[in-house]
C-alpha cells in the first residue's frame, strides 16, 4: 500500500515537473530569489526566510492551490504533525480577549519592527463573526453563530483550535494563514479565539446588541492601523 502511494506521488511529481517544463521559460527559484533580493534590499537577516516559500507553499503554488488528492493528503499529514496542543488539554480561553485579537491587525509588518503589543489575528478582515461588527471581510466563510451551529460541542473546540493553529492541516492550500505553525499567535491566543467561536457567552453566538451595529467600523482597516501605514 505504502509503495503504491510512493509510486503515485513520484509520478504525480513527475507530471507536475513536466507540466512546468512544458513552459520552457518557467521562472526558476534561483532567478526568483535573485529578483527578490534586489526587490527587498532592506530585508533584515531574520526576515530572509520570509522570501522563500516552504515546501507546502511551493507545492500549492505549483498546483495553483489545487493539488491532487494524494499530494494534498501528504501535505495535511505533514502540517498536522506541526500542531502543538495546549499542555492542559483545554482548548477554550477567554472570548473577550479573543474578540480583541479578532479586531487587531497588528504585527509582523515592517512598521511593527519593535513589537509594542501582541500580534493580532485580524479575523474580521476575512470573516463575519459577531453580529455587532458590520465591518467584516468575505474572503473567508461566515462564522456567525459558529458555536451555536456546532451545538457547543466540546470535542469540536479541538477541531477549531487545530484549524486556527494550522489551516493547512485542515484545508490544503487554504488562503488562511497558519497562525500557530507560522508563529503569528501563541497557544493561549489561539485558545482565546476558540472561545470567541465556541463559548455560548461569546457575542458571535448571540443576537446583535441593539444600537451597537458598526461600532468598530472605524477602528481598523484591512490590515489594521490605517494611520500607521508606512
Amino acid at each position, binding site marked *: 500500500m505504502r509503495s503504491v502511494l510512493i509510486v503515485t506521488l513520484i509520478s504525480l511529481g513527475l507530471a507536475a515537473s513536466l507540466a512546468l517544463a512544458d513552459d520552457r*521559460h*518557467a*521562472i526558476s527559484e534561483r*532567478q*526568483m530569489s535573485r*529578483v*527578490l533580493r*534586489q*526587490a*527587498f*534590499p*532592506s*530585508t*533584515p537577516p531574520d*526576515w530572509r526566510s*520570509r*522570501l*522563500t*516559500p516552504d515546501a507546502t*507553499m511551493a507545492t*500549492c*503554488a505549483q498546483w*495553483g492551490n489545487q493539488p491532487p488528492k494524494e499530494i494534498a493528503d501528504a501535505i495535511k499529514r505533514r502540517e498536522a504533525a506541526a500542531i502543538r496542543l495546549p499542555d492542559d488539554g483545554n482548548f477554550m480561553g477567554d472570548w473577550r480577549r479573543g474578540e480583541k485579537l479578532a479586531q487587531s491587525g497588528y504585527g*509582523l*509588518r*515592517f*512598521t511593527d519592527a519593535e513589537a509594542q503589543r501582541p500580534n493580532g489575528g485580524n479575523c*474580521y*478582515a*476575512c470573516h463575519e463573526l459577531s453580529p455587532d461588527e*458590520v*465591518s*467584516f*471581510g*468575505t*474572503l473567508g466563510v461566515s462564522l456567525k453563530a459558529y458555536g451555536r451551529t456546532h451545538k457547543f460541542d466540546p470535542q469540536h473546540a479541538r477541531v477549531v483550535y487545530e484549524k486556527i493553529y494550522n489551516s493547512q492541516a485542515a484545508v490544503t492550500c487554504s*488562503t488562511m*494563514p*497558519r497562525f500557530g505553525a*507560522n*508563529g*503569528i499567535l501563541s497557544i493561549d491566543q489561539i485558545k482565546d479565539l476558540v472561545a470567541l467561536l465556541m463559548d455560548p457567552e461569546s457575542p458571535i453566538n448571540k443576537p446583535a446588541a441593539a444600537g451597537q*451595529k*458598526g461600532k468598530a*467600523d*472605524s477602528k*481598523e*482597516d*484591512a*490590515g489594521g492601523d*490605517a*494611520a500607521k*501605514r*508606512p
Partner: protein
Amino acid sequence: MKRYRRLAMRSALLAGLGFAAVAGDLRAAEPDVIDRGLEAFRSMLKADPWSNPAMLDADRGQALWKERRGPRNVSLERCDLGKGPGVVEGAFAELPRYFRDAGRVMDLETRILWCMETLQGIEPAGLTDKPHPAANEPVKDPGAIATWIASRSQGRTFNAPVSHPREKATLRLGKTMFHRRMGPFDFSCASCHASPGKRIRRQGLAHLVNPDEARQVVGEWPAYRVSTAHVMTLQHRLYDCFWQMRLPELKLGSEASVALTAYLVKQAEGGTIAAPGLKR
C-alpha cells in the same frame, strides 16, 4: 491661478461632503446603503474631473518636468518615455516597455527615475530611500511627474508592447510573482485578488485575474486616495500590498515591481486609462 482657486474650493466642498458622509449616519446603515452612497460620491467626482485633488499634483508634475533641476541644471523635456525624446502624449499607454538605452524593461515611474538620473544627474538613492509619502503628505516629485504623464494618456487604452524577449520575460516573472505565496501569512497577490466579489473588512477587492475587472481598475492609477489624503502611484500601491503581506519594503523601480506592474497592465490590456483616479 483661477483654475487653482476653483479646484481648491471644490476640493474643500467635496472633502466636507466626504467627512459628513463618513461621520454621519451612513456608518450605522446597512452595507448596501453605504456602497450606494460611496458610488454616488465617486460618480460626482467622475462627473467633474477637476474636483479630483490629484490634478494639483499633476500640475506640480508638469512644472517639475519643465523645470531645470539637478546638478546638470536641465529639464526632463528630453526624456524618452518610449515614443521619442520629450513625447508625453500617449506615452503612458505604451508602458511598461523595454528600453535599449537602459537595457531593461521599465514602467513609467522607473523611467522617470532613470531620466532624472541620466539627464539631470540626480542621485537615485535620494529618490528611492523614502520613495512614498506618509499619510497626509503630498506624493513625492517623481510620483507627481508620473501623475501628470499618466493624465496625458487619459481616454487611451493600455497597449504596452510585448514583442521584445525581455518584455515577455518580464510578464512571465510578474505572473509568477502574483501567485507566489510567501511570508509568515502565506499570502500571494492572488490570495486577495483572484476571486470575484470579495472584500477585506468593508473594502472591495479587485479580481485582477479577470481581465474585465482589471480593465476597470488598473487604469485609475496613479490615484488620489481619500483616506490618506495624497496621490498614490501604482508602485506605492504595490509597496503597500507587500507591507500588508508582512514582507519587507519593496524597492521603487525594482525588477519585481516593474514585472508586477507589467502583469497588471497586461491583464488590463484594452482597458481605458482614467488616471488620475480616485480611491477610498
